[in-house]
Every structure is written in structure tokens, then in C-alpha cells.
């Protein structure tokens, strides 16, 4: 069966033959780095055009339709435009922090890419603390935003950063607790183990209602964590013009923009991994023939299919819901989501101990 793992294995063998094991490792590192950056750029382009097309579809219009077939190259044209634009730094800004902030946002998004399994046996870094790593690193994204808001020396930016700080820190809690539900069921914080545990069925089907609740809480929390509508208070176009990136332009703005989309991809990938079995095909109990047919679909297709389904869900939220107010946003987290996810975690633990899950 054609798959990423075969390609990776063949490249590994070929390099070992060619230059010996040490240099092969170095070259593989370089290839992995280039691949991540390439994936990054490709994902950015694909997600931006997808967002615009989804928005257009929901808003009864056509969306970009001039550049390339059906406007598919529109985001490339936009990238070129952003690249050649002047990178302004405002006079009153803290130059160092202002220029570093977009890169921090970007690097955090890049780091999160590491433990994700894109296909069967195809993972940049199969670490045994995958879930812990993800929750730890994703908290760092607030630093880039706070830095940008503070360094811009703009009141709108400061308010946006302030909101974003409160928002990301609080939603991390219920997001983390929702992830814990799956960790408790699996008994491992390695993403590989979590995927393996879903061989006979995804957690969303196996874990009864508590896991479905955990999934809903996870989706709400990550929408808030990635600052997407209806929780886009950090940007809040109609209130704070553009929030924390009001003063950014050109490529520095593009980096924030890209980081947002990559973050959306990553949280959806993690959601797909935890609740929908990552690259695992859909298997239903004893239906041998059905399971066999499902196995023929490449694992990467399964992974990207699930991830893009979740991304579509998050885009759908953005184009249909109005924005929450800051106090309502925090109320929702601290008064509703956090208690619910705590009780939910207890329920999941009970299910896991008693072995009620399938």
C-alpha cells in the first residue's frame, strides 16, 4: 500500500547507503525542517482559500474567482503582495518586541507540528509525552500576542492583547481537561498510543456521552484559544479595529495571519487524533468486509479528511455566530465550561475504571 511511511523508509535507506548513518541523520533533519516549512506555507495557502470559499458559500456569493482556476491562486497573489509590502514599525513602538512578536507566534505554531501523526508511522517526533507537550507549547502562543499588543504602543492593540491574555489562559483549562478525558481512557499521554487505542473504534464512539461532551468542550475551547469567531475578541474588528495586530503590516502581519491558520489546523489535527482516531480508518465491530474496504483508503487521507472536517466546523462557527462580550466570554468558561468539564472528567474516569467503554 502506498503511504508516507514507505516513502520515508525508502529515503532513510537510500541516504544511509549514500552517506552513512551520521550524515543521513543530519540530512533527514534538514529534509524534515524543509518539509515542515513547506507544509506550513502550503497549509496557509490552502486554509486561506478554503476560508474564503467557505465564507463565500455561506454568504451567497462566489468568493475569489479571478486568479487561476476558480480563484485557487488568489492566496498566492495575496502572499506576493504582502511580501513586497513595506514592513512598517511605528515610531513609538518597542522595536525589538514589535519585530520579534510575529516570529514567536509563528515558532509556537511550528513547534506544535512536531508530535502530530500525519499518517501511519509518519510523525516528525514520536515523543512519549505528546499530549503534555502540546498543552505546554500551545500556552506559549499568548506570549506572542501579548508582546505584539504591548510593543505596538497602541491602545487598541493593548486592549486586544489584554483580552487575548485573559481568554487564552482561561480556555486552556477546559481545553486541557477535555484532552485529559481521552488520556484517562487510553492510560497514556503518547499520541501514538492514543491512536493505537482507537484501532477498533474511535473514542467519540467508544467513550459514550462523556467523551462527546469532552469533544464539544474541546472544540469550544480551541476556537477560543485560536482567537476565532465567536471568540475573536482579541481582534474584534468592529470594536478594536484589528486588536493586537492593528499596527502590523506586510509580512509581519502575514506571519500572525499564517500562525492563526496553522494553529487552527493544529488544534483540529489534535482533535482528530484524540477523538476521531487520527489516521485510523473507520472500523465498525465485526463488519469484516467494510473494515477491509476502509483499510484501502490511505491513512493520510483519513487524517486530513477528519482534520479538514473539523476545520470546516470552526469556519462554520466563524461565519454564522456573532461575537461574545468579554465578560460573557469569561463567564462561559469559569461558570459553565470549567465545572462541566471537571464533572465530565470524573465521569470519564469512572467509565475508565469500571471498563464501561467499548
Amino acid at each position, binding site marked *: 500500500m502506498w503511504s508516507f511511511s514507505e516513502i520515508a523508509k525508502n529515503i532513510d535507506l537510500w541516504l544511509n547507503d549514500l552517506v552513512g548513518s551520521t550524515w543521513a541523520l543530519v540530512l533527514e533533519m534538514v529534509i524534515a525542517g524543509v518539509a515542515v516549512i513547506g507544509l506550513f506555507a502550503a497549509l496557509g495557502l490552502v486554509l486561506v482559500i478554503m476560508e474564503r470559499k467557505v465564507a463565500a458559500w455561506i454568504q451567497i456569493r462566489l468568493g475569489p474567482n479571478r486568479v487561476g482556476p476558480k480563484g485557487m491562486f488568489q492566496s498566492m497573489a495575496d502572499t506576493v503582495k504582502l511580501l513586497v509590502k513595506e514592513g512598517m514599525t511605528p515610531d513609538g513602538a518597542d522595536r525589538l518586541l514589535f519585530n520579534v512578536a510575529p516570529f514567536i507566534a509563528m515558532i509556537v505554531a511550528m513547534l506544535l507540528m512536531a508530535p502530530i501523526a500525519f499518517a501511519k508511522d509518519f510523525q516528525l517526533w514520536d515523543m512519549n509525552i505528546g499530549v503534555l507537550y502540546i498543552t505546554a507549547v500551545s500556552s506559549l502562543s499568548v506570549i506572542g500576542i501579548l508582546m505584539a499588543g504591548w510593543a505596538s504602543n497602541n491602545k487598541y492593540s493593548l486592549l486586544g492583547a489584554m483580552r487575548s491574555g485573559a481568554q487564552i489562559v482561561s480556555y486552556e483549562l477546559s481545553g486541557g481537561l477535555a484532552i485529559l478525558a481521552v488520556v484517562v481512557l487510553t492510560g497514556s499521554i503518547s499520541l501514538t498510543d492514543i491512536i493505537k487505542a482507537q484501532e477498533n473504534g474511535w473514542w467519540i464512539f467508544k467513550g459514550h456521552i462523556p467523551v462527546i461532551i469532552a469533544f464539544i468542550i474541546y472544540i469550544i475551547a480551541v476556537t477560543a484559544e485560536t482567537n476565532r469567531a465567536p471568540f475573536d475578541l482579541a481582534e*474584534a474588528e468592529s470594536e478594536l479595529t484589528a486588536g493586537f495586530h492593528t499596527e502590523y503590516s506586510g509580512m509581519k502581519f502575514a506571519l500572525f495571519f499564517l500562525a492563526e491558520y496553522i494553529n487552527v489546523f493544529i488544534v483540529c489535527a489534535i482533535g482528530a487524533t484524540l477523538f476521531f482516531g487520527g489516521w485510523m480508518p473507520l472500523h465498525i465491530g465485526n463488519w469484516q468486509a467494510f473494515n477491509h474496504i476502509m483499510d484501502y483508503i490511505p491513512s493520510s487521507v483519513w487524517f486530513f479528511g477528519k482534520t479538514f472536517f473539523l476545520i470546516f466546523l470552526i469556519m462554520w462557527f466563524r461565519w454564522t455566530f456573532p461575537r461574545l462580550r468579554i465578560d460573557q466570554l469569561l463567564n462561559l468558561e469559569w461558570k459553565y465550561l470549567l465545572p462541566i468539564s471537571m464533572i465530565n472528567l470524573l465521569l470519564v474516569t469512572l467509565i475508565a475504571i469500571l471498563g464501561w467503554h467499548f
Partner: protein
Amino acid sequence: MYRETEIIKDAPQFGEPGFGDLVINVGPQHPATHGVLHLIITLNGETIKDIKPNLGYIHRSIEKMCESLTYRQFIYVTSRMDYLSAHINNHACALVVEKGLQVEVPERAQVIRVLFDELTRIASHELWWGAMAMDLGAFTPFFHSFRERETINVIMEETCGARLTMNYYVPGGVMWDLHPDFQKRVKDFITLYKKKIHEYDELVTGNIIFQNRMKGIGYISPEDVISYGCTGPVARGSGVHSDIRKVSPYSIYSKLDFDEVLETGGDSFARYVVRIKEMHQSIKIIEQLIDNIPEGDFQAKTKAVLKLPKGEYYQSVETARGELGVYIVSEGGTTPYRIKFRSPGFSNLSALNHMIKGGKIGDLIAAMGTLDLVIPDIDR
């Protein structure tokens, strides 16, 4: 240019009043002010302590301009005041001139005028609905409301030749007769509207986030409505009987069957509901008239040069935003000696500080959306 140290030196120290306040200029260029409105807001964290509207960015001295134009000409300048209800502005001016000249407007012209007024009201409320949802962060409603508004604009374009500043009314009637397709187009619009209006409730009105953002926010009591001089949906949202079409009917409104929409909530949601229900009432009026447009002249015979007798004339109409009053002092010449417009937006804006003080930034934007401000109407 200020250095940072200088800014810090001026700021109040700890313990002094105003410590920790943040003064922000919302506008004149801001996505939520829908024009060049400038609000100087004082914030403490996210809480609004004070709002000072700063006007005049789009002041074109329309009143002064009107004083040097003849009674036929000055009507068209008023299209540029509240550009979303251009027909209704023109109606007020035409009525006041007719009052001075003692002209009897033909029945057909009156019906045409009311039809266009109500179409304008719907178009204006459609745009308000989309823009207000956009203020709340929902982008999609804007496109859905423009789908219906576009149909109205096509109707306007066919008969009047313009889509925004129509300039269709003249003293004594309307400029020319209806387009032959008018009735069919309007009926098509009514069908479309009735088919699609439920989307408005599904997409926005019934949304839990929307209701939480609206209910109990921006409250204004009926007493305050009267003391601030608010009119239109803002006043009726607080239960104040203020529809000029009912209070002092003009044209043929006294013969028509429609209800004045009154809500008693006084909050942003009540103002929202008033406008939504007003669209239904306008449809009701159009349905009554569209099959009963009387035959006859569309314009009364008037002299080529109009001269208002010496005296003072006043006429108010109900625009989409509230009461528009036109006050003319005539010295008997061909141009007005003094003209004064009482615009609804100005009074409605003055209540903003009272409504929002102590709320959050999000509340300010939401409540400002329900005031339905058109900035050229405020500045003139």
C-alpha cells in the same frame, strides 16, 4: 512628537481621580462608526466611564446651502442628509413647500410617494440589520440583507433612475410616472421578502449569543427618551408613542391600516425588535396600495418659479430613523430665508452616553448599532 516620558508625566498619579483611565478615540475612521463619527471614550479597563461624541467631520452646511437654492432645487440637497432614507427626506421638503403654496397633490402622486417611502424604510432597515449584525461580529447577515435590499434598489433605479439619492419628489407630486414594471417588481419583492424573512430570525434574532449581547443592554427609560428628544425606533423601543405617521398623519397615512410598533423593553433588543416589526408593517402598507394605485396625474400643476408667501412653515415626517422636521422661514422670495432641519440621528446620538455609561466596549458598539446612526444626518 511626544516622548513616552512626557505622556507619563501628564497622567494622573495613583490615588488621584482618573488614575488608570484610558482615553480612546473611536473614529473618525473606525469600522463600527459607519462613517466619520468620532467618539472620545474614557475607559477603565473594559468598562466605559464616559463618551463624548465629537461631530462635524462631514458637516457640509446643508442648511446654509439650501438658503441659496430655490424651492424646487433645495429638495435634492436633502437626499444627501440621511442618504438611506432619501425619499423620505425629500417627502418632508416637498410637503412643507406644498403647505406654503397650498397645492393639492394628486391622489396618484400621494400613493406613489407612500409606496416609495415604505420601500425606502424597508431598504434602510435591511441595511441597518446587516450593519448591526456586523458590529456584533457576524458578517454573514450583511450579505443576506443586501440580497433583499438590492431588489428594492432595482425598483428604485427603474423608476427614479438612481439607487441612493433618488431625487424623485417635486413640489406638487413626483417627477415622472411609474415604470410599467413597477407593480410586478414590487410584488416579486414581497414574495421574496416573505420567503426569506424567516432567515433573519434563524440567523440572528434567535441566536443565544445575540440575545445575550442585546437584552438588558443600553437601557433608556421613557422619561429619558422624551428628555433627550429621541424619536423613531429608539423611542418606540422604550414604549413612547412617537410614530409621526400616527401622531400627526401626513399624506395618506391616516387612511391606511397599519400598527405603530411599540416595545416596552427600552433595551437594545427592544429597539431591534421594533425595526424588524416595522419592516412587516411597511410590507403591509405596500400590499394595501400596490393594487390600488389610482389613475390620474402624477404631478399637480405648479408655477415655473415657486414663491412661498411670507411666513413660517413646519412639517415633520417619520424617516427610517425617527422624526425629521423641516422648518422654513420665508420672506416671500424664491429662496428660503432660513431653513432648519431637525434630524433624528442627532438626538438619538445624544442619548448614547446615558445608555452605555458603565457598560463594556462591546455594549457600546452593540447599542450604537441599534441607534442606527447615519453620520451625514447628524452633521448635515
